[in-house]
């Protein structure tokens, strides 16, 4: 056990590639300020699951008499559970719709508002199964759009060759795999392609799309599982799933023309250019700029929110302490878990919003 934690400390200190994801690290938590006691429950986004579990482990390990429970039931289910008052906070990948907002506000009590806090950030990557490629595949938005709309059917197509000069591409069929369930990941993919490959991408924007073909599977684990089993397969998923399946992921061309890897700093660089919309209640929404000209930015970046009440939270002390850790010290382990640290400009605003919760 001691050796394991030492090893974990060593890898996190070096920042080397660590493929043992989703298990959490035993690194000593930094910056935990305890407060409140009792139990806190959250539910929602599966995207947030791994980082929430890490926060919970760090926080409850450092603060005696606290229990935090997060159930990854899916964003939609989390929001409705928050509205019904059965959980203390919800996790969601997309903003609440008007009727959901109204229900959540009502739960918070008269005059109070349910607010969005972008606590987790991460990349959607394109992970593939091709034998014998020496380096990461490089893909431009138009090529990605062509692959997922069925216009590019072979790996040696001219569009893929143009993105990868000098690389011998396998002469096999492209097997594009998409999500069969409604998903925030599909939403991010479609928004990115709709903004950056308008001519090729004809499927519009949404959590569910009308796919013209290709295979489908349920959940991030489902699509990565199919790609792992299918030579020539490619899918879009959160970085952590590509890592835990030992699959490579492509470098994606951003609007400055550079092909960028989805490492945490590059994702944070993209999110730092997001348009922020903040309200006096602490509500903070980030509109990701998929066309950012920042050369280091990995363009397919996303934020995931927690939803809490601005005032009138049950067990506000504990909620404040837990989220306080999540938005500060909790971000330091993000990279290793396949997420990206929330960029500083957002983190500062988040810290203030969390402090103001009651």
């Amino acid at each position: 056990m001691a050796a394991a934690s030492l090893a974990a400390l060593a890898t996190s200190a070096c920042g080397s590639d660590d493929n043992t994801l989703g298990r959490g690290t035993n690194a000593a938590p930094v910056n935990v300020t305890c407060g409140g006691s009792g139990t806190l429950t959250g539910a929602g986004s599966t995207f947030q699951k791994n980082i929430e579990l890490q926060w919970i482990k760090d926080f409850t390990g450092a603060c005696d008499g606290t229990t935090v429970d997060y159930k990854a039931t899916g964003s939609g289910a989390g929001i409705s559970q928050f509205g019904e008052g059965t959980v203390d906070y919800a996790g969601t990948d997309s903003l609440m719709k008007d009727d959901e907002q109204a229900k959540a506000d009502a739960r918070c009590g008269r005059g109070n508002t349910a607010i969005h806090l972008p606590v987790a950030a991460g990349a959607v990557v394109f992970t593939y199964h091709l034998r014998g490629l020496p380096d990461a595949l490089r893909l431009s938005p138009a090529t990605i759009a062509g692959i997922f709309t069925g216009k590019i059917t072979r790996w040696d197509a001219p569009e893929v060759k143009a993105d990868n000069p000098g690389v011998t591409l396998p002469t096999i069929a492209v097997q594009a795999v998409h999500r069969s369930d409604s998903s925030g990941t599909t939403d991010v993919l479609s928004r990115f392609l709709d903004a950056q490959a308008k001519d090729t991408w004809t499927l519009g924007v949404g959590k569910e799309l009308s796919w013209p073909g290709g295979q489908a599977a349920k959940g991030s684990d489902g699509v990565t599982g199919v790609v792992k089993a299918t030579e020539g397969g490619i899918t879009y998923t959160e970085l952590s799933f590509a890592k835990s399946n030992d699959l490579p992921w492509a470098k994606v061309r951003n609007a400055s023309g550079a092909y960028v890897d989805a490492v945490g700093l590059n994702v944070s660089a993209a999110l730092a250019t997001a348009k922020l919309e903040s309200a006096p209640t602490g509500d903070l929404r980030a509109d990701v700029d998929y066309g950012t000209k920042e050369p280091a930015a990995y363009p397919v970046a996303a934020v995931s929110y927690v939803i809490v009440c601005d005032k009138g939270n049950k067990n506000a002390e504990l909620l404040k302490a837990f989220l306080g850790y999540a938005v500060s010290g909790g971000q330091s382990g993000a990279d290793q878990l396949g997420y990206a640290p929330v960029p500083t400009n957002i983190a500062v605003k988040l810290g203030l919003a969390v402090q103001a919760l009651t």
Partner: protein
Amino acid sequence: MEAAFRGGTAASATLVFVVIVAIAAFLVHKAVPALDGNSASFLTERQWLPDREPSRFGIAALVAGTIVTSVAALVLAVPVALGVALFVSEYAPPRLKAPLGYVTDLLAAVPSVVYGLWGVFFLVPRMQKLQEFLAAHLSWVPFFRVTPGEPVGGRSLFAASVVLAIMVLPIVAAISREVFVQVPQSHREAALALGATKLEAIRIAVLPASRPGVVSAIMLGLGRALGETIAVALVLSAAFTPSLRLLRAEGGNTIAANIATKFGEAGVPGRGALIASGLVLFAITLVVNVVARAILFRNRRAA
């Protein structure tokens, strides 16, 4: 005491009707608003986007997938199942009868999620060669036709049908065996005494007498195939183009599997749409049952 018992049985009988009517009423009540909000034709639309503005969803691909996988599963499973049942009841040496019976019963008791996981991780990768072979050499069979250049095999409708067939087989085999064993030994002996061979004795004495039971067994198997949810959701790649071509890697979809995949993240119209599809499955099952009853009834009169 007599009256109380009579009342109790009558109450149980009524309860069945009440439950059926309550299910139908619930499905209709929840489905109607979603169907009203559907801006496309429920019967022909080739998309399932009920939570979009405007809401668009159609049942065609789901019904096609449900029926084609179930029927294909029966085509694959029934001959083998009847073979198993006949072997156990007619041919197997007494020492083997009991163990074989236990094994078929055990297969029938394996939960469907286990079949699903086994199907997707073990069977599907190992079936790729077979699926490619069928596409290359049997493409004159309409169900096996593929468009040139289209990915073949993988988590296709055919793969789902094979998993369903394996799930259906033990049910049909176990019930058919029970039915065959029920045929009085004296009938077989009479046939043999008249000079029939073993095969002829089975044909004239065993099979006709057990036909209603075998039809019931097949219908129960069909019921399991039609309603199978999690195994299909795991094995089948979900697509919404209605198609009877079994080998396309794009796959297809069934009503039950679609409900399992979509329910978690569905909004209010989305849930209504899924419940509407559940109503269709309810109707299909009802029709299948009525047809099975009609077949049995006609047989009984003919006999």
